[in-house]
């Protein structure tokens, strides 16, 4: 295959990626967009087997097939055997951490590609190539180890709260300085050892960078690391002289940056504060624990009676709904209330659950009609006319502390103002605070009733109690 044809096909794949991102931005075209992206990636992968990049010394390119052809096929097969089942079998609730993990391995792959090309070029590498290699190794490693930490946080393999230790910011700043110093060393000294030291330091920095991020900020960090990985792909495209990698990587880097900002805005967070939280984080005051305060807990029958006499009910779903897989049961309850002439809406907080749009996905799975889903700005003014707000496994997104307690980790985040409803029902597993680890004053409010237990089991009981009325 001629190099012109190869480049043209690469360009076509790049266009596919642009169309994919465009499609993914609109609900109607999203699925098709994703398939177009997959098509572009498939074309790009197939065509690379049909063209041999000529060596840099100007000698003839070797003839097809590629060197190490069967090794390459074998490695792709291993990747497929790991990746496809993981993606197919994952529970909806665990999707965010899987995306984090996929992003991390992508960053790791980019770093490895840069390291191999560096070993391969040796002293032939130009200064520009070394600089791009250093960039890829640093950012790829940060993305890899950072994503692993976000995975562990979301999987609850470690604490979900910000991890802050005394002098932490100095350790992080020191590590960053070391990364920059060693980068300079690699550029001037050239050699394998400095590069490996750089990789190790970058991995450490990635861990330290993500540890102080907690709670609701984790999805923002995943999105940011995603943009980082895109940029590393673009940088390795420069070193490998591949236009396709430059286009694809830059697209992901740019769109990922915008997306990160949009997500931060949706959560009322400053992007700067999230990113540099590592440098400014102080050990949080842990909410005064151990203090026993009275709460009002009710039975499923109490809840059913309250609902039976309501005119308007707003359902606020959260992560607990996802954990209990209660989306079908909640729809059953909503349908039952509708059949009794009760006005029902779902109040969807943009970041309810563990990722933005989590609840929309979950309720769509249960075929909840789209017009019953109300976004935050739409539903907030209606809480004053709402008789009952049912909060199912959500906590931080309805926590008034976001408005009333400056300095708490979620302060400034827009919330669903369920406290304006005449009655609030919380379905909770326990009194444990939410993901962000903050006490919720609303639980102690006299108009609040708590129904403890697994969301699905509780809802099933409420449904049968309501049917019996």
């Amino acid at each position, binding site marked *: 295959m001629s190099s012109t044809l190869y480049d043209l096909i690469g360009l076509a794949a790049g266009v596919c990626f642009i169309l*994919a*991102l*465009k499609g*993914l931005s*609109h*609900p109607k075209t*999203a699925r098709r*967009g*994703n398939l177009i992206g*997959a098509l572009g*990636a498939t074309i*790009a*992968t197939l065509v*690379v*087997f049909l063209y041999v990049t000529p060596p840099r010394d100007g000698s003839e390119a070797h003839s097809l097939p*590629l*060197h*190490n052809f069967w*090794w*390459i096929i074998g*490695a792709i097969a291993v*990747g497929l055997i790991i*990746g*496809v089942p993981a*993606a*197919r079998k994952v529970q*909806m609730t665990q*999707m965010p951490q*899987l*995306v984090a993990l*996929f*992003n991390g391995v992508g960053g*790791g*792959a980019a770093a*490895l*590609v840069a390291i*191999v*090309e560096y*070993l*391969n070029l040796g002293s032939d590498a130009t200064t*520009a190539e070394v600089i791009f290699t250093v960039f890829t190794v640093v950012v790829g490693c940060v993305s890899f180890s950072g994503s692993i930490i976000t995975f562990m946080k979301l999987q609850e393999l470690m604490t979900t709260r910000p991890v802050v230790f005394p002098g932490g910011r100095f350790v992080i700043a020191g590590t960053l300085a070391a990364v920059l110093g060693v980068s300079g060393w690699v550029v001037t000294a050239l050699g394998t050892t400095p590069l490996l030291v750089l990789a190790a330091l970058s991995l450490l920095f990635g861990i330290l960078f993500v540890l102080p991020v907690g709670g609701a900020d984790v999805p923002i960090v995943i999105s940011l690391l*995603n943009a980082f990985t895109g940029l590393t792909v*673009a940088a390795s495209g420069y070193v490998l002289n591949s236009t396709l*990698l430059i286009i694809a990587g*830059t*697209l*992901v*880097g*740019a*769109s990922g*940056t*915008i*997306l990160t900002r*949009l997500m931060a805005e949706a959560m009322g967070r400053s992007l700067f504060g999230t990113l540099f939280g590592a440098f400014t984080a102080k050990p949080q005051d842990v909410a005064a624990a151990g203090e026993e305060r009275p709460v009002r807990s009710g039975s499923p029958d109490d809840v059913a009676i309250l609902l039976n006499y309501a005119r308007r009910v707003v359902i606020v779903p959260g992560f607990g709904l996802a954990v209990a897989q209660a989306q079908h049961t909640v729809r059953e309850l909503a349908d039952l209330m509708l059949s009794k002439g009760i006005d029902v809406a779902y109040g969807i907080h943009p970041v309810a659950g563990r990722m*933005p749009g989590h609840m929309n*996905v979950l309720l*769509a799975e249960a*075929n909840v009609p*789209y017009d019953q889903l109300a*976004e935050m700005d739409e539903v907030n003014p209606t809480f004053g006319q709402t008789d009952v707000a049912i909060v199912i496994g959500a906590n931080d997104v309805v926590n008034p502390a976001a408005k009333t307690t400056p300095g708490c980790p979620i302060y400034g985040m827009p919330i669903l103002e369920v406290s304006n409803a005449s009655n609030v029902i919380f379905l909770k597993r326990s009194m444990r605070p939410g993901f962000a680890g903050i006490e919720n004053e609303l639980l102690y409010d006299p108009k609040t009733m708590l129904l403890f237990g697994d969301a699905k089991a509780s809802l099933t009981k409420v449904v049968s109690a309501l049917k019996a009325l």
Partner: protein
Amino acid sequence: MEPMAIVSIFVLAVFVGFEVVSKVSSTLHTPLMSGANAIHGVILVGAIIVADHSKTNLELGLSLAAIVLATINMVGGFVVTDRMLEMFKGKKKGADQ
């Protein structure tokens, strides 16, 4: 490649990247992030190129590891995004019922 050509490609791609996602609704943030994540799995192409260049066992080993990771990123990414978006498809049916 000419440095100026590379800079041009880079700058134009940045603007395209900004432009295509600037008006996305919060509902689609996660699938979009996941789809973009799958797209950078195209580093697989780079991993295959360096596997072809590899002269030593160390280089080959590292590039094969890169191929495995990149394949997981790319294929897993597209599959998981499709699964998320499959959920949205149900909406219309729900409205008809």
